[in-house]
């Protein structure tokens, strides 16, 4: 699984800066929108649900009020005190006095029809005798009194009775409300009843709650008294549970918000079934709006991200490519800079860096060239004609004197001297070889000058013998000691060459006990060596300057020469090689 995700991630190059930017922007952009959408949806949905609940409750309460008003009005009519005409009709009818009862029958028909006219929705008004004889607004007829009584159930007052909906004698769907009437002049009581058209209940519940939403009325047992689907009337409601508590219910796979109220006058429940779909239809608008807004914002973010990531990643990609080319020694690269943002600054830095590298390389080339020139000059200085001629003359003299051993030594020393001077063209030589080179030189010069001076080579730290230093560092200094220190002096000369290491520095101290140098001159020389004083005569202090410059070029400004002298006593040249600055 992890590999699979990794593969996909690799497939879409998730590691690239551009993809990371897109993902980051998407997350940053989408999260607040989704969060806002979710919160606003919840808040709005809560408000709508509250509104629907309140509206449904208001509707059922209003229906209850209307229903109770209507039923109370009917009850008021049914709750007759003594009625002369009815009493007379009852008395005469019970006596089968049809001759005298007919005018009361006519009166009752007239009255009951007036009542029907005054109260829309009343289908019939009737007086029913205990034997089932009935006089109503439609005339006189007989009913099954036992069945009729059985169908009645009392309200809470136990004085008014209701039936379930049924089809009456005249094929009308009605609910009957009845009360007992006790005539003063007859022993037998009668039932006065009113048949209420079910359409009255339909009119009472004719509130627009939505296409799928509807109202229904059920009795205390949950038996449906009115339902828009007439086939449901008389059924026990599925939602009856010791009443109809308000809740969300499911019907045929759809959700409904059930709200109910109980009418104490009728003993009926008035129930509203608000379709949750319809309630949420309004929410769908918000949902769709949120979705559309999210999609639009998503597209905008993607476009913005593409633009931003391109504007960010393109220069970086270009920078990467140029850096790669630069790493492949193509230092001609240059970034075309537009704008003044951080990327542009980076490009400027890159260009600056490339320019600096180029400059450093040019400087390096120049320095190398100068170094070579100094080396060559140093070599040229080594191969001075009179040194070679004198030495060769000396060798010839030895050969003429048949002093072949010394001649051999001299030839050998001269050969080594030049071989070590050239060192196969190497720039750096072992200190060991540099010491040998100085020894050969001193051997030759000692022989030439009749051993007027001695020399001592003292290397305190033998380990430095295997360190590399630029060639021809010691010999020019020793040569200066001989020619400018010892030879002008009238005393036995001594040259001490001392090698030591201190911290990361290698020091060579070349001390002679010659004539020394005047202090002003020492100061001048040191200033020249430090670069504090320029000279026009390039031959002046050539040896010292050559060695000093080569050391500084190779080891940095800390390396170089320093001259100390006590006039008529000694001169000491210190060579400092700072290995930390070595190339």
């Amino acid at each position, binding site marked *: 699984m992890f590999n699979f995700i990794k593969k996909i991630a690799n497939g879409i190059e998730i590691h690239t800066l551009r993809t990371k930017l897109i993902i980051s922007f998407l997350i940053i952009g989408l999260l607040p929108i989704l969060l806002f959408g979710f919160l606003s949806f919840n808040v709005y949905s809560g408000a709508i649900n509250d509104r629907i609940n309140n509206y449904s409750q208001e509707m059922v309460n209003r229906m209850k009020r209307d229903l109770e008003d209507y039923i109370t009005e009917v009850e008021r009519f049914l709750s007759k005190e003594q009625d002369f*005409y009815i009493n007379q009709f009852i008395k005469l009818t019970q006596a*089968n006095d*049809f*001759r005298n009862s*007919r*005018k*009361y*029958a*006519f*009166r009752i*028909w*007239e009255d009951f*029809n007036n009542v029907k006219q005054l109260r829309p929705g009343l289908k019939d008004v009737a007086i029913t005798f205990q034997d*089932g004889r009935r006089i109503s*607004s*439609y*005339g*006189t*007829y*007989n*009913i*099954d*009194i*036992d*069945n*009729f009584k*059985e*169908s009645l159930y009392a309200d809470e007052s136990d004085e008014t009775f209701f*039936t*379930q*909906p*049924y*089809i*009456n*004698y*005249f*094929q009308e769907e009605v609910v009957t409300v009845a009360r007992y009437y006790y005539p003063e002049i007859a022993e037998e009581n009668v039932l006065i009843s009113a048949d209420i058209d079910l359409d009255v209940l339909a009119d009472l519940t004719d509130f627009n709650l939505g296409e799928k939403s509807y109202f229904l009325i059920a009795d205390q047992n949950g038996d449906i008294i009115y339902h828009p689907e007439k*086939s*449901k*009337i*008389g*059924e*026990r409601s599925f939602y009856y549970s010791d009443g109809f508590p308000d809740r969300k219910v499911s019907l045929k796979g759809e959700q409904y918000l059930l709200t109910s109220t109980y009418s104490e006058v009728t003993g009926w429940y008035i129930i509203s079934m608000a379709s949750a779909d319809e309630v949420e239809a309004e929410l769908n608008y918000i949902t769709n709006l949120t979705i559309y807004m999210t999609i639009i914002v998503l597209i905008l973010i993607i476009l913005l991200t593409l633009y931003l990531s391109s504007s960010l990643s393109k220069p970086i990609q270009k920078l990467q490519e140029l850096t790669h080319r630069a790493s492949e020694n193509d230092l001609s690269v240059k970034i075309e800079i537009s704008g003044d943002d951080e990327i542009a600054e980076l490009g400027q830095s890159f260009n600056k860096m490339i320019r600096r590298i180029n400059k450093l390389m040019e400087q390096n080339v120049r320095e190398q060239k100068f170094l070579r020139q100094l080396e060559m000059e140093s070599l040229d200085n080594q191969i001075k004609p009179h040194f070679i001629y004198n030495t060769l003359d000396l060798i010839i003299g030895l050969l003429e004197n048949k002093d072949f051993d010394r001649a051999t030594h001299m030839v050998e020393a001269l050969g080594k001297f030049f071989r070590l001077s050239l060192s196969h063209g190497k720039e750096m030589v072992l200190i060991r070889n540099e010491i040998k080179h100085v020894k050969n030189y001193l051997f030759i010069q000692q022989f030439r000058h009749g051993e007027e001076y001695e020399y001592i080579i003292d290397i305190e730290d033998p380990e430095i013998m295997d360190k590399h230093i630029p060639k021809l560092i010691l010999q020019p200094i020793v040569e200066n000691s001989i020619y400018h220190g010892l030879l002008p002096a009238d005393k036995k000369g001594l040259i001490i060459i001392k090698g030591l290491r201190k911290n990361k520095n290698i020091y060579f101290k070349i001390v002679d006990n010659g004539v020394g140098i005047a202090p002003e001159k020492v100061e001048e020389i040191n200033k020249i060596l430090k670069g504090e004083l320029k000279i026009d005569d390039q031959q002046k202090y050539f040896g010292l300057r050559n060695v000093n410059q080569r050391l500084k070029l190779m080891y940095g400004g800390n390396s170089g020469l320093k001259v100390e002298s006590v006039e008529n006593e000694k001169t000491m040249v210190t060579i400092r090689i700072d290995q930390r600055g070595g190339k």
Partner: protein
Amino acid sequence: MFNLYSCKNNANKILLFVVLFMIIMCFSADAGAEISSKKTADSDKMTIAFVPRSLENPIFLDAFEHSQKKAVDLGINLEWLGSFSFDSEKQIKIIDSLIERKVDGMIISVNDTPKYDRIINRAMEAGIAVATFDADAPNSNRIFNIGIDNYEAGKVTAEGLLKVLDQKNIDYNDPDQELRTMIMTGVKGALNLEKRINAFLDTVADTNIVIEDIVENQDNVNLSVELLEQYVQKNPDIDIIFFVGGWPFYVPAEALPNFRNWAQNGGVAVGIDIFYDALVLQDRGLIHYLVGQDMATMGSKGLSTLYNYIKYGVKPPEYIKTGLEISNQENLDRLLRIHQPWRVK
């Protein structure tokens, strides 16, 4: 228990005992609905329903009274059903409900129109014996009609009119002097009324009596009073009014001021239907000659005839004639003593 719905809606229960329980419940519910909506508990008795044209027309009260007496004698469950005011749609609906309840027989007063023929034939096809009283539907399959000879009634009324004119020395043969006449009837299509009108016209054909207008009151008492008052106000010089039925006679003379003035100014009114209020109007000089129907016989004999037909298969004649009663100045006092006021004071 009292409705027709519970059976089918609970029939899809799965458990056997529930099914059985529901069957029992349905059976009992069906039984209740059956009895309640079709026959009464006293279902051994034959049920015959009278359907008058309306309840508000007191002319039918005699039939109502005497049919009830006869029903007690014969042991019949009698029903007397109708809309309060005449309304053919409501009357047909009532007849339809009687068919639905499968009563044994019905005696109805109807218009002679195809829609009544259809409902009567449907009842007959459903095994319900149907007869007509007062107004007939001869084109239907009804078994018989009981009522007056309407042509005879119209004729007698016209003859009575001529007698009154003689008494008032009004020359009804003078070709130079027309006697302008208005006829008030119920609705067109009522065969009994048409016959009365035709007989009247036939009888006065050779006189100078000319029919100026025929006014229909839709079998409505109140409307008939209103139309009469308006008519005589607009046409005070009308000479004669022939009332084909007694619709406007149910109100006291004080409720007919224009008509009363017209009568006092020499107008002559004759009509069919005798009952207490009509006789009072005659006594006060608003009406001059009345011909009555024997509604009591229509009620009692109509019921017994249909009972015999249903119970014993005694086939009656198609037309059973009841007699006519005449009210004139000579017998008015006697008739006022016989006829009872129908209105409760």
